């Protein structure tokens, strides 16, 4: 069950993505059908920046431990006894060291409970700030997503910085006999590019397969939880969902090239760029699509994208809603008045106006789009508000949100008849501490000396039977 094969047969890699994100859940039947195809590797990308900066900063996963354990247990039981590598990347959702250690502990727990033995590889992705500063000084750092240039202060101020590894460390870990590979932050398609590379397949095939497999069965329709099987060959890839309720169609596969990418055509990855301009799609069966024509442009310099977050304070929020038509008609003035009273009262207990930030989202008016909301008036018969306060300490955030809540509840307004209170408040306690708050600060591309040295691999023999 190894991707190294008989030299006389054409290379092939059967790669099974079990889910879009580890911990999101997948049907057991879809996994079983995928395993019937005798894959060379099964895996899941466990992470994303999508849930925001908090999880990288706080070092905790955005999926629950219960859900992570359920998905991981099914993967290990399906693959380990058959000697098929199980690869999980961006462990814990953000891929920092605490996320990786949490998953390592969880995997060891499953091994004990299920009496499984395997060689475990942990691939670390947290970065050394001294190395980043050295590269910055040498002019070897450039911004991603039109960010401003990186600064030494941002490197120093970051709570945690991870590098997005490419396929090379995964190939090395599999070649070393690791059966279960847990990795920190990686680019979403990397593990699949690794699975294809091990079979001797060209990089464009592995990267394209990875772009399709990175979100499980998302390139299939209708949208359901399921698994996706890619059969990767030298000059084409066949994509098939293993949930029988789903099909890959030419359009569902082509559409997925749009997903979360700035460009549908040019996909930048460590070591090069995948170009899908020339891709053609063929409906092989009613459930399988064949794709060919992708290209890989090797970069001159091997680069790694870095993600880092900085702690910017502490937050507290409160939720309220009004059903009062007079208040709704004058809502802009009312919220201005609320802000002024909050500033005065906060000042009275020692918090100056520049000692906190207050955001008021008015759902029904501009709650979702904020400054980008094209409509400036509302016909809503009720409006809901989330008050958000960011402050240097939790105590100040809690104090200001509490005064903002009571002010929103009780402040006067012209024509007011509801003299006992302006707001319905759905909870007691009314305010919620959100704890430490983070922002993405590092989102930059760094020249790496090689594909491996930023991502050290650690091996362990896990003995669940003894």
């Amino acid at each position: 069950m190894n991707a190294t094969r008989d030299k006389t047969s054409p290379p092939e890699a059967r790669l099974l993505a079990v889910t879009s994100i580890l911990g999101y859940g997948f049907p057991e039947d879809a996994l079983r059908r995928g395993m019937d195809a005798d894959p060379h590797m099964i895996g899941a990308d466990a992470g994303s920046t999508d849930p925001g900066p908090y999880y990288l900063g706080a070092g905790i996963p955005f999926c629950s431990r219960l859900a992570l354990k359920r998905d991981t247990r099914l993967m290990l039981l399906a693959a380990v006894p058959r000697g098929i590598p199980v690869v999980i990347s961006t462990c814990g959702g953000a891929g920092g060291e605490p996320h990786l250690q949490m998953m390592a502990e969880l995997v060891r727990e499953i091994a004990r409970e299920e009496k499984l033995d395997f060689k475990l590889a942990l691939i670390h992705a947290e970065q050394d700030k001294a190395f980043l500063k050295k590269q910055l000084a040498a002019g070897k750092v450039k911004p991603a997503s039109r960010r401003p240039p990186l600064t030494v202060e941002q490197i120093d101020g970051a709570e945690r910085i991870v590098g997005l590894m490419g396929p090379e460390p995964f190939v090395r870990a599999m070649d070393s006999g690791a059966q279960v590979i847990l990795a920190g932050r990686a680019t979403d398609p990397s593990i699949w590019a690794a699975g294809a590379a091990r079979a001797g397949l060209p990089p464009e095939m592995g990267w394209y397969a990875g772009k399709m497999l990175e979100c499980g069965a998302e390139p299939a329709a209708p949208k359901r939880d399921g698994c996706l099987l890619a059969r990767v060959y030298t000059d084409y890839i066949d994509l098939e969902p293993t949930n029988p309720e789903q099909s890959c169609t030419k359009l569902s596969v082509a559409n997925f090239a749009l997903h979360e990418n700035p460009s549908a055509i040019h996909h930048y990855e460590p070591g090069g760029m995948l170009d899908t301009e020339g891709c053609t799609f063929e409906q092989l069966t009613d459930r399988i699509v064949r794709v060919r024509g992708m290209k890989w442009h090797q970069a001159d310099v091997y680069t790694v994208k870095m993600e880092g977050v900085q702690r910017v304070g502490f937050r507290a929020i409160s939720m309220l809603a009004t059903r009062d038509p007079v208040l709704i008609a004058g809502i802009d003035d009312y919220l201005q008045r609320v802000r002024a009273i909050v500033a005065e009262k906060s000042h009275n207990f020692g918090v100056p106006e520049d000692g906190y930030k207050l955001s008021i989202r008015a759902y029904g008016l501009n709650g979702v789009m904020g400054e980008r909301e094209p409509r400036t008036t509302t016909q809503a018969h009720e409006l809901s508000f989330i008050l958000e306060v960011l402050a240097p300490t939790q105590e100040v955030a809690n104090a200001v949100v509490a005064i903002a809540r009571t002010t929103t509840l009780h402040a006067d307004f012209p024509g007011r008849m509801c003299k006992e209170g302006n707001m319905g408040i759905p909870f007691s306690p009314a305010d919620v501490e959100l704890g430490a708050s983070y922002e993405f600060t590092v989102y930059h591309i760094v020249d790496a000396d090689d594909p491996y040295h930023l991502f050290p691999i650690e091996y362990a023999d896990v003995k669940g039977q003894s």
Partner: protein
Amino acid sequence: MTVIRELASVCKSKNAGPFEVTIDVIFSSDELFERVLSTGILSAALFAKLYKVEESQVLFMPYPPARAFKATLPRLIPAGAFDDRDVYGAQQHAPILEVDIPD
């Protein structure tokens, strides 16, 4: 004139990293896609106007294999930072729904 939500099969937005949002408009037939393409109404300039950014900040492309138009533009507030409204960027498609396409 017909608004896009009566012509498109999919109109969606999503983060492309924490600092950019990408908006995809997909049509159910090649004919509809070609018709909308030929009007030139979906363009970098349109997205710049609707989303309050400079045109040079918009990456715009038609993508015929998916019968799609794609625009990627900067977020006004990075994902998850103070006062962000939409951490996943999944609800920023609405202004496109109301865009008129000539018959």
